[in-house]
């Protein structure tokens, strides 16, 4: 084990505005850089996976090899080509066993690292009522609250554990919403996914607490490819939160996750994200490439899937949490705040595919552009011929801070059933001098006035977040805007 007191701030050549930029020095079990079948087999073996999982990974890998490695080109983001052979695809902080049996076996430095992130992983912090699955690089560190969840019949564990313990559910649902051939990054993820969370809520159960996963990339040159699967069985409810941070690195780090949600009859899944990966420095050096595929299927009648995201981090965000509204009377929601500052780029939005009758979707997307940031909302609302009586409401608002940033809105609407009702509202505004003057005339500083107005712009979205997350989101917004206002 490494020496004590090793949680250190990163070096001075990077600006220290990023609060979560520490590196934890622990022995890691790492695969060599590069990607080939052996690496895929290694990952599968490290995780002690059954044969079917390895076969699926290999299928994905072989498919990935046939793809153009430039990745999708349609998004309004600009970055140099990624060398996929220069990335490490497996890094685990556990050198011996794949997973510790209890918290006592976890390296205290790891726990301290998570403490620094404000994650209630320790026993005394369990009182907050949030069950946490913490993913450090590629492995799941500890899942708190396991016992009380078990009593309710809720399964909340790492996806690698679920592959071993609940192979039937994995076989049935993994890849059923986002198939391995879905898109370039999803295919890559399917081949090399390391860990992630698995949730199953049995019929009629209202999950007694919010479930939360905290992701952190620690090792340098390591990509993070987590995979999350949430299944809400008939009549159940679950609220799931996810937070992410990464240390400051001069090089870019790749994060290509896949999240799949399935809601059966009368079930509801509420999925909230605070994405705060390292955004790079103010000149655009370093930062995480956040290329994520998130999709939910409102499979059963009257089911509901709701995505809420606050995206403030990452050098580049490429992400479209979507809902397939298959069950009759099902509901899909997407609430988003995406903030870009300095040289950050975000191309984010959603896809609502209406298949069932009387399906309903709501999209509220707020983009904030500051510095030289470029923010794009990209969305597709699709009403299939079967979707009798479908309704959609879309609202896209952009707020510009300063005069070097950009905001773009690319909404697609595809209606194939004449009974559909569609509403689309869009606005672009600037924080006005009159608003600032008004707040300042009340004794509020220019900087505070900016935060206040920007926060107000996001209020409708923050209201969708669980209370503590909403507070954190406001804080994140403030930290992310430093230097852009006042």
């Amino acid at each position, binding site marked *: 084990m490494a020496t004590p007191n090793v949680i250190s701030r990163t070096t001075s050549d990077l600006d220290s505005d990023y609060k979560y930029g520490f590196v934890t020095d622990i022995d890691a079990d790492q695969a060599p850089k590069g990607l080939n079948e052996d690496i895929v087999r290694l990952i599968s073996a490290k995780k002690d996976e059954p044969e079917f999982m390895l076969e699926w990974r290999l299928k994905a890998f072989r498919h990935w090899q046939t793809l153009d490695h430039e990745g999708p080109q349609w998004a309004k983001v600009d970055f140099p080509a990624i060398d996929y052979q220069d990335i490490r695809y497996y890094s685990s902080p556990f050198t011996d066993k794949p997973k510790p049996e209890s918290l006592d076996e976890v390296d205290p430095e790891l726990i301290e690292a998570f403490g620094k992130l404000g994650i209630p992983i320790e026993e005394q912090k369990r009182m907050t009522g949030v069950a946490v699955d913490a993913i450090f690089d590629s492995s799941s560190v500890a899942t708190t609250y396991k016992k009380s969840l078990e009593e309710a019949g809720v399964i909340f564990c790492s996806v690698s554990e679920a592959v071993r313990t609940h192979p039937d559910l994995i076989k049935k649902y993994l890849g059923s919403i986002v198939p391995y051939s879905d898109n370039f990054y999803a295919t890559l993820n399917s081949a090399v996914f390391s860990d992630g969370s698995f949730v199953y809520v049995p019929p009629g159960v209202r999950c007694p607490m919010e479930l939360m996963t905290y992701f952190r990339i620690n090792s340098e040159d390591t990509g993070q490819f987590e995979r999350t699967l949430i299944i809400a069985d008939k009549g159940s409810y679950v609220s799931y939160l996810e937070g992410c941070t990464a240390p400051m690195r001069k090089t870019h780090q790749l994060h290509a996750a896949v999240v799949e949600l399935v809601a059966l009859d009368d079930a509801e899944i509420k999925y909230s994200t605070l994405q705060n990966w390292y955004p790079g420095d103010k000149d655009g050096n370093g930062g995480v490439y956040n290329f994520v595929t998130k999709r939910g299927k409102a499979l059963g009648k009257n089911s509901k899937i709701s995505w809420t995201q606050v995206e403030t981090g990452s050098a580049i965000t490429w992400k479209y949490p979507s809902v397939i509204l298959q069950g009759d009377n099902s509901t899909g929601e997407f609430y988003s705040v995406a903030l870009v500052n300095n040289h950050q780029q975000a191309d984010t939005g959603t896809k609502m595919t209406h298949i069932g009758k009387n399906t309903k979707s709501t999209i509220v997307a707020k983009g904030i552009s500051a510095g030289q940031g470029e923010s794009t909302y990209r969305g597709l609302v699709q009403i299939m011929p079967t979707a009798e009586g479908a309704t959609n409401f879309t609202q896209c608002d952009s707020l510009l801070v300063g005069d070097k940033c950009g905001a773009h809105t690319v909404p697609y609407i595809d209606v194939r059933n004449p009974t559909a009702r569609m509403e689309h509202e869009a606005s672009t505004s600037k924080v006005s*001098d009159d608003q600032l003057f008004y707040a*300042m005339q009340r004794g509020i500083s220019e900087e505070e006035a900016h935060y206040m107005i920007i926060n107000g712009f996001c209020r409708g979205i923050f209201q969708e977040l669980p209370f503590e997350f909403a507070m954190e989101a406001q804080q994140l917004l403030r930290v992310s805007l430093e230097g852009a206002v006042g």
Partner: protein
Amino acid sequence: MLEIRDLHVSVAGTEILRGIDLTVPTGEVHAIMGPNGSGKSTLASTLAGKQEYEVTQGEVLFQGEDLLGLLPDKRALAGLFLAFQYPPELPGVRNRHFIKAALDALLEHRGEEALNARQFDKIYRAATKDIGMDTELTKRSVNEGFSGGEKKRNEMLQMAILDPALAILDETDSGLDIDALRLISEGINRRRSPKNATLLVTHYQRILGYIVPDKVHVLIDGRIVRSGGRELAEELEERGYDWLREPASEIPTA
């Protein structure tokens, strides 16, 4: 309280105020009257520090200190309050939260302890009641969806809570029905004290039926052309402003 000496102000290169001299002593209420376009609002906004109003000449002392060198928030913290003629909307910013933030900033500036939510709530409720403001309205975003009268009341609410040394009311009476005018006038009279001062900027004499000013000043074409007591306002009501205008030949071209 306020001393304005030879104040010249331009907006986008056009001189609007052309040498204002005005003294408002502590404990007094002064009214500035004048026709549309005479520079009344320019004076009010300049005192509050609005950026596009460029002071080209003159000085302003507020409580004996130079005012013009301060940013708008510092002026506010020093005790200067402007009730806006057209208060802007702050979508998503709750009214209550906004006013608490303003009061917190003020208390911090004075080195006093911030109020907790309950203490503030008490003050806030009492003040909304005094001003006859619908409590439902105060839960909404600042000025969003407020009627003209509601916006004015909201300005008076903020004035009551922040209790400034000098309140400048820019056409606060315009567009109000009689009941609202009476309530707002009561609010202004309530704050009258030997320790503060009020500058009422108005187009109409109407509000002066409720508030008796110590002095009335007439502003025409960027200059104070006459000052007097309450009776001057009555005279204006009867005769209009034209008799006070300078002959055209005497107006220097800008």
